[in-house]
């Protein structure tokens, strides 16, 4: 069980969804994330930059089918923070029920 730690950076709705999607896969591509979240490139880039700066996300530039792709994956620190944050949310819910 992860330590329940409320993470203010992850708590923002789109960043929480980014972490949730990345948590379920070894990596997710930028274009797929944009389609899933329905946000602009610039908005998604800013969210990703914040998560990368905090050491929660890793970026990897690759070429697939002749096109440049950006792969994003949760770092061990990011995975721990995401799981800790969802545990904290569960604690908040449990405390008030």
């Amino acid at each position: 069980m992860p330590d329940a730690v409320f993470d203010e950076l992850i708590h923002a709705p789109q960043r929480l969804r980014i972490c949730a999607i990345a948590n379920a896969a070894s990596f997710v591509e930028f274009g797929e994330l944009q389609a899933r979240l329905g946000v602009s490139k610039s908005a998604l880039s800013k969210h990703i930059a914040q998560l990368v700066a905090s050491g929660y996300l890793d970026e990897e530039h690759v070429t697939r089918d002749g096109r440049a792709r950006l792969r994003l994956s949760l770092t061990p620190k990011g995975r721990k923070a995401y799981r800790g944050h969802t545990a904290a949310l569960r604690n908040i819910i449990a405390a008030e029920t």
Partner: protein
Amino acid sequence: MVSDMETQFTGDPSSAAARRMLDAAEAAEHATINPPLTWTYFVIQAVLLAVVCAAQMLPAAAARGVALVGIVAVVAVGIRWVFYRSGYGVVLPDGTGAYPYLIAMIITVGIPAGLALGFEQPWIWLVAAVCAAATTLDMGRRYRKMTNRA
């Protein structure tokens, strides 16, 4: 796009807000490990499993060969469409989601298969083949309904 951006959150959320956020996170994870799948996927899997079952009426060596190739094909199709699809790396399997299907397959295919082997009645493998295909297609119907793509 101001609406896309979010400022840093400060302070603990209410229980209702925490529930909404947790639901959103779980939905995002669920949608990642349970991708949209077309009917083509389930029809291919149903046909492959039915062929593997029906092939057990063939001589032993041929039956083993078809079973091996068929099972490899079933796994390969599953990996390509679900666990290693375009846009993602390796996706976690939904163990709890697959559990009812595995139980149904053990019952609907395992029993006819056991009878076919126990009573040495190869024609019963045809029943197993029909059950395998029907179970897989029914799973497809339920899966697509669950993912709102019926």
